[in-house]
């Protein structure tokens, strides 16, 4: 109830400061969240926005690409939505430099966003010293979700904490007649797997040298070569049905105790939840082997420039509501991710989310995923090489490194 008062107080200030007294606070919001858990999360935003006095017009478009395409065409066509979803990272920078987005610096300063946001996120959403987007969550990508039943029946007593333990456990699972690793192979998820193995085996410094600096020498570093070999070794632990399988079908293999584990981001929790399973209780979560780190990605909302004071007021209110502590907690419980601000009490969240929150709070333990580090074009060129390596057992780590280098050089 106290929260509600603060909201209205801030709203009043905002409205007075922009001298809009009776604004029509209708916000059309584009986002790609259509699956059960995702839609429930989007509804938290809608409810909170309406509670703050606005009218929410939901424009959900299935599929990240389709939603991105729709956003771009509506912005370029001169009929932009009030706000639209992007993934945190490079892709939205072009819209910023084309001058199509407005900044949220005034609200960010007033509400001290910089004090509660991770530095990597601040860097990713700042242009010319101004905050250009509303970050709404922090997703942990490097989870190992495992079936407690399969682990138990295969005689794997402990969750593997190192790579040798990991492969020993995988061998036991296979010997017991299960698929060790549930994986849906395509260029996207093969790249996803690659970046997790790289950071886990080679460590964050080399990871950044390879993916951010794209230093040719780093690709030859023994630890990086070891990461490539580890990735190659993992090929042997998936089943023949892996190519083209959807990620959630792979998750289902863990849910139904056909596979031992899956390497997937925290959105997999939604699939487990749909099967009535509680994280940490009915199934296990563990951050990747090696030193525990959180490889993050995240969702942001951008606000297109609209020459209409009502829409500007709606955008201001939206930025405030989406970033509010209460919204952050409720939204992220539904979405399966973590609040973007570090001052939210996560004790009501599940065990896995709490663990990720604890790890990412330690300095240097939050690692950006490659979306923060390179253009989509380069990500794609890299993914093509990775999926080829993953599906071509005869390809050596040295050839892999050479072709990665070529991909980095060809893309813009």
């Amino acid at each position, binding site marked *: 109830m106290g929260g509600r008062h603060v909201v209205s107080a801030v709203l009043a200030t905002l409205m007075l400061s922009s001298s809009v007294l009776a604004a029509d606070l209708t916000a059309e919001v584009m986002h790609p969240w259509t699956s059960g858990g995702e839609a429930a999360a989007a509804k938290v935003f809608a409810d909170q926005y309406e509670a703050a006095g606005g009218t929410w017009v939901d424009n959900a478009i299935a599929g990240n690409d389709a939603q991105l395409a729709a956003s771009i065409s509506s912005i370029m066509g001169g009929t932009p939505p009030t706000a639209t979803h992007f993934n945190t990272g490079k892709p939205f920078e072009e819209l910023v430099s084309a001058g199509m987005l407005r900044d949220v610096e005034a609200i960010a300063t007033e509400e001290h966003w910089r004090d509660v946001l991770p530095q990597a996120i601040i860097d990713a959403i700042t242009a010319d010293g101004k905050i250009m987007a509303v970050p709404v969550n922090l997703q942990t990508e490097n989870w190992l979700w495992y079936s407690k039943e399969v682990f138990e029946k295969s005689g794997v007593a402990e969750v593997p904490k190192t790579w040798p333990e990991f492969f020993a456990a995988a061998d036991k699972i296979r010997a017991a007649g299960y698929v060790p690793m549930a994986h849906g192979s395509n260029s996207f998820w093969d790249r996803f797997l690659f970046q997790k193995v790289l950071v886990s085996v080679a460590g964050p410094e080399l990871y950044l040298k390879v993916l951010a600096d794209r230093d040719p020498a780093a690709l030859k570093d023994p630890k990086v070569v070891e990461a490539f070999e580890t990735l190659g070794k993992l090929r042997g632990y998936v089943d023949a*049905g892996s190519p083209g399988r959807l990620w959630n079908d792979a998750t289902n293999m863990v849910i139904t105790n056909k596979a031992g584990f899956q390497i997937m981001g925290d959105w997999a929790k939604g699939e487990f939840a749909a099967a009535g399973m509680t994280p940490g209780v009915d199934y296990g979560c563990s951050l990747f082997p090696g030193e525990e780190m959180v490889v993050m990605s995240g969702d942001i909302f951008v606000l297109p420039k609209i020459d209409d004071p009502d829409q500007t007021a709606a955008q201001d209110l939206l930025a405030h509501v989406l970033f509010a502590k209460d919204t952050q907690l409720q939204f992220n419980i539904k979405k399966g991710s973590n609040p973007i601000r570090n001052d939210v009490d996560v004790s009501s969240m599940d065990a896995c989310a709490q663990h990720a929150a604890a790890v990412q709070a330690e300095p240097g333990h939050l690692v950006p995923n490659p979306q923060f580090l390179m253009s989509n*074009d380069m990500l794609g060129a890299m993914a093509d090489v990775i999926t080829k390596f993953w599906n*071509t057992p005869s390809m050596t780590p040295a050839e892999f490194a050479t072709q990665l280098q070529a991909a980095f050089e*060809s893309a813009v």
Partner: protein
Amino acid sequence: MPLLIRLRRILPALIALSPTAVFVFGIFLGCLIWTCVISFTSSKLLPNTDFVGFAQYARLLTTERWIVSVQHMAVYGVAYVVGCLVIGLLLAIFIDQKVRFENTFRAIFLFPYALSFIVTGAVWQWLFNPSMGLNTALAGLGVAGLDLGLLASPDTAVYGLVIASIWQGAGLVMVILLAGLRGVDPEIWKATRVDGVSPAKTYLWIVVPELAPGILTSVVILGIAAVKVYDLVVAMTQGGPGLGSEVPAKFVMSLLFERANVGLATAGATLMLLAVLCLLAPLLYLSYFRRGAR
């Protein structure tokens, strides 16, 4: 006076056709030209007019994914067109034997063509699934050693696409060729019977050449479908395993949005347009120039 009467007669037609003309020239042709122009720029997420000459084409032709995509399209296209023609022709000949329930058979054979490539792809992806599809069904029946997990290997995935699309497209060829067969002069059959020529030889040397226009139409329709194949790949293999079943249309689509490189994507699209024009050339030649010469 006759001129005025003629004008008055065609005026309603001109008026009725003008919106179509606006659409064709304004939208179709306009978009084609725009795509072609953008392919010479450095456009990334947003189209721009920073012209860079043939740079996008140079990158495209050295990109492995594009090269293997074109190879897959060639293999797929040839196998698909030939497969559909052979099976479609055999089905048409079969139905032309005055079989009973002809309508039923025709409907059954044409039925797959009514399904979208997405549905076709989803069904065949399950059938070829090594852990639950035909493979396990056959193993359950005691047939061993027959590996139908075509989609699990980068070397064979394209053939999985070919089988699914022949299943889908053969019925169309059947209908087109059946119409041709019905147009064959019955006197030919009487004459060959008198001369003692076997039906097989009659078909091969006399009837099939008569079907040339129908075959050409089929080749053009199937050929264009092969150049732009996209949804089948997305539903069946997502281009994998690895780059094992990537095709040009999928390359263009993923570059357009997911990879935010409009310049490179439009360069690929322009090359695909050239491929389609090459396929259309024989048809255009036959329908305009040969007829004019006659």
